[in-house]
Structure formats: structure tokens, C-alpha cells
């Protein structure tokens, strides 16, 4: 058995170990490779950055479950920090499915602690879960207060000072959907098409490629894709001197770089092995026939 044949039969536990190592080491000993923001992230950042306390609100939606926290949590927190720093009224919606609300709670609890002078109901509003998914998106276009009745803490929406003058999509400058599913399309189809509200999004790297068609057609104002997108947003916040928290996405980028290199190496080695072995087998087959 040749070298390549043996290599291809390598126990996959060694590969598992390799991935663990390339992820862990840069976390302990970071290199701090520079991060260059891309256009879709820059567009989203710029849009929010032009807003202020007098502008229409940002409607931030938390549409993901804990499995996607590493990619999406930094995004939702960065947007919250951005809004609270600029004083833009922000409505955080705990998402279209019940499993998402806990994430939203985690996000707002952590960020609110960094801004002790900002008050729930005055500077930000946290809305809970109601079933219906697309029906909820449509209902917000009619009336937020009668759709949700109360905020997450049970306070009637009518009594919240920030919500004075915010009735439906016409008082919202941008919906930012941070999503792990196809929900941005729903916000587009039901929020934008029916009520012409602007939509921006943060999504996992898995779904980012398919949203480029909507970016190009101008249906989304901007997009953060995956942990890299989140890192770019953190970078933009930091460049402006805004608070950017612990920058979890940025610190993960070195590990990301090395893990990618390892996987590329694995693909290349695996394919070399595949071709070498296949050729040897064909040769052996031919010789057998000759004999």
C-alpha cells in the first residue's frame, strides 16, 4: 500500500484534532490580522450612521436560535450599540419563533448594562414573541401597539414614551433582520413589498450568497454576512470611536483564517491522493490485463 493510499485511510479523529488545534491556538495567541470592511457592510453601517434621535426608529429583529450565536450575536449587539450611541430609537423584536426570544433577551441585557443611562421604553423597546411568522410581519404594517399589546416586560405599548409617534412601518426608517433562516425574504416580501419599508440584514455565511441578488437590485440596503461581516461592523464602529464591546467576532477572525487554510490543505491533499491512487489502480488494472 503506497503512501497516498495510507494517507487517504487516515482516521478522521486526527482531522478533528487538527481543526480543534488551529481554532484554539489563535484564540490564545492572537495575531490581530487587519479587517477590511466590504461594501455591503459599509452600506448598512452608513445608513444607520446618518440617523439620529429625531429620525424614525430602527426595527431590529432577532431571528435566530442559539446554534447560530457565534455568527449573529455580535451583529445584533453591534447594531444595538450603534443605535444607542447615536440615540436612534430602536425597537428590538424577539423574533418570529419562540426559540429566539431568549437570544434577544441575552443581547439586550448585555448591551443595556453597557449603557446605564439608556432606559427601556424611552431609548429602546423590547417586544416579545407572538405566533404567526409572516402574519406578524404583515400585522406590524398595520399597527405595532395592537399587534403586540405589551412589550416583553408586560408594559402596555401605548404607555411607552418612545413608542409615541411610532405606529407602523411608516415610522420605521429601517428593519434590520438578523437571521439564521430565510426570514429576510419574508421581511422583504411582506414588509417591503406591501408596506415599502427599508430592509437591511445580518445573516449567516450559509445564506449570504443567495442574498446578493437582492442587494444588487437594491431591495436590501446592506448586509452583514457571517462572522466576518460582524467583524467588519465591529471594525467600523471602532474606527468611528463608538463603543464596540468585546469584539467577539474580530477576535475569532484569526482562528477563522487558519481553519480555512487547513481545510483548503485538506481538500488539496485529499484530491492529490484521489488522483494518485486512481492512476495507480488503472495502471495495475492494465498490467493485469497484459498478463
Amino acid at each position, binding site marked *: 500500500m503506497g503512501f497516498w493510499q495510507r494517507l487517504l485511510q487516515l482516521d478522521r479523529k486526527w482531522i478533528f484534532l487538527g481543526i480543534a488545534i488551529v481554532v484554539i491556538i489563535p484564540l490564545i495567541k492572537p495575531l490581530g490580522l*487587519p479587517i477590511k470592511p466590504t461594501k455591503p457592510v459599509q452600506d448598512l453601517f452608513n445608513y444607520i450612521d446618518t440617523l439620529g434621535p429625531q429620525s424614525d426608529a430602527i426595527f431590529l429583529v432577532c431571528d435566530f436560535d442559539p*446554534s447560530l450565536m457565534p455568527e449573529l450575536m455580535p451583529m445584533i449587539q453591534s447594531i444595538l450599540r450603534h443605535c444607542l450611541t447615536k440615540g436612534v430609537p430602536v425597537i428590538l423584536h424577539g423574533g418570529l419563533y419562540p426559540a429566539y426570544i431568549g437570544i434577544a433577551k*441575552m443581547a439586550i441585557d448585555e448591551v443595556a448594562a453597557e449603557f446605564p443611562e439608556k432606559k427601556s421604553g424611552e431609548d429602546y423597546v423590547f417586544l416579545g414573541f407572538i405566533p404567526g*411568522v409572516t402574519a406578524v410581519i404583515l400585522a406590524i404594517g398595520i399597527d405595532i401597539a395592537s399587534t403586540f399589546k405589551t412589550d416583553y416586560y408586560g408594559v402596555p405599548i401605548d404607555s411607552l414614551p418612545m413608542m409615541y409617534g411610532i405606529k407602523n412601518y411608516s415610522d420605521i426608517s429601517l428593519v434590520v433582520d438578523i437571521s439564521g433562516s430565510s426570514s429576510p425574504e419574508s421581511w422583504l416580501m411582506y414588509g417591503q413589498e406591501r408596506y415599502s419599508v427599508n430592509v437591511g440584514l445580518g445573516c449567516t455565511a450559509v445564506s449570504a*450568497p443567495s442574498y446578493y441578488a437582492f442587494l444588487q437590485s437594491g431591495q436590501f440596503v446592506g448586509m452583514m454576512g457571517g462572522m466576518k461581516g460582524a467583524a467588519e461592523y465591529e471594525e467600523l464602529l471602532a474606527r468611528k470611536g463608538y463603543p464596540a464591546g468585546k469584539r467577539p467576532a474580530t477576535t475569532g477572525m484569526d482562528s477563522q483564517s487558519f481553519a480555512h487554510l487547513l481545510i*483548503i490543505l*485538506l481538500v488539496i491533499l485529499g*484530491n492529490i491522493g484521489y488522483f494518485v491512487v486512481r492512476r495507480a489502480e488503472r495502471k495495475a488494472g492494465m498490467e493485469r490485463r497484459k498478463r
Partner: protein
Amino acid sequence: MLRRTLPQAIAFIIGFAMLIQYFIPHPISERFYNVIVQQWLIIILGFMYIFALRSFFMHHIVKIRRKKEGYWFSAMAIVALLFMLSSGLITTRGVFFDSLYNYMIAPLQATMFSLLAFFIASAAFRAFRARNFQATLLLVTAVIVMIGRVPIGDYLWKGMPDLVEWIMSVPNMAAMRGIRIGVGLGAVATAMKIILGIERSYMGGE
């Protein structure tokens, strides 16, 4: 009649009404839409969670009753459910309930999905082959995107991020748009067939 025709009639009436509603801006039409969307649909959809509950109990209770292999895992699942439920209701979603979510549900789910990082690496080595022209093209693009989307790509070659952004917004975008138009047409055709009662598989066939 009650089992087939009437549900079908309901489907047709509500579907047709909601469809023409889209084209009518008059207040009567808007009010109809508001009632259906804001009240009816949201309430009906809430009941659909019964399905999740049912399949959970069916699965685990059957296992326990028949003492199938690993039945005590099922027992643990039911205990966990009751524990979560009672802690949520007793504390009215208090700190303890939040902690159960933050330190048990969240890490468990996040970790389960992170297993995929390992599996993808192993598949990269053992199964992803440039077996033909298509697969080769796919793998080459994948390698470029993987390098160009992380800071090290920028570090190795300054033009890398721009190249990837170009791939994403030109060839990728064009193909995705084509795929989407096809999927969109299929979805519209299916929706129409549902309203007209040609497509009934969602009701469990005939």
C-alpha cells in the same frame, strides 16, 4: 362532504378573497385583511404548536412504554421538559428560567451545530473530489472564496477580497437570480394549485 368538499371550499374562498384583496386598497378590503392577518391567522397558527408537542410525546412515551433500548433517555427528555415548564411558570420567566436558557439550551444547541465544523473538515479530506469538470469548478471557486473572505487572504494578496466580492456580486449573483426566478415560478404555481384545490397533498392526500 365534511371531510373533503367543505375544507376545500374554505380553502378556495379564503384564498380567493385574500388574493383579490391585494389589488383593492378600499377600507373594507383593508379591514378584512387586518382581521384575517392580525387575529385569525395568528390565533390559528398558535395551535399548530400542538404538532410539536404531540410528536415529542408520541416518540418518547412509546419508547418508555415498550422499554425500547435507551428508554431512560426518553424519560430524561420528559423530565427536562417538565422541569423547564414548571420553572418558567413558577418564576414567571424569572432569572432562573433565563439562566436555564442561557447556560443549558443555548450552549447545547450551539455545540451540536459546531460539530459540523469537524465533519466538514473530514469530508473536505475524504469525500470532496474534483471528479469532473463541474465539481472541479466548484472546488476551485470554494478555495478562492475561503481564502478571500478571511483576513489572511487580504494579507497574502491585496486584491483577494475584491476578487471574492466580484465573484459574489457577478457570477454568483447572476446564477442565484436565475435559480430564484425558477423557484419563484414553481412556488406561485403551487400556491395557485392549492387555492384551486388541484394540489391537496398538504391535507394528507385523499
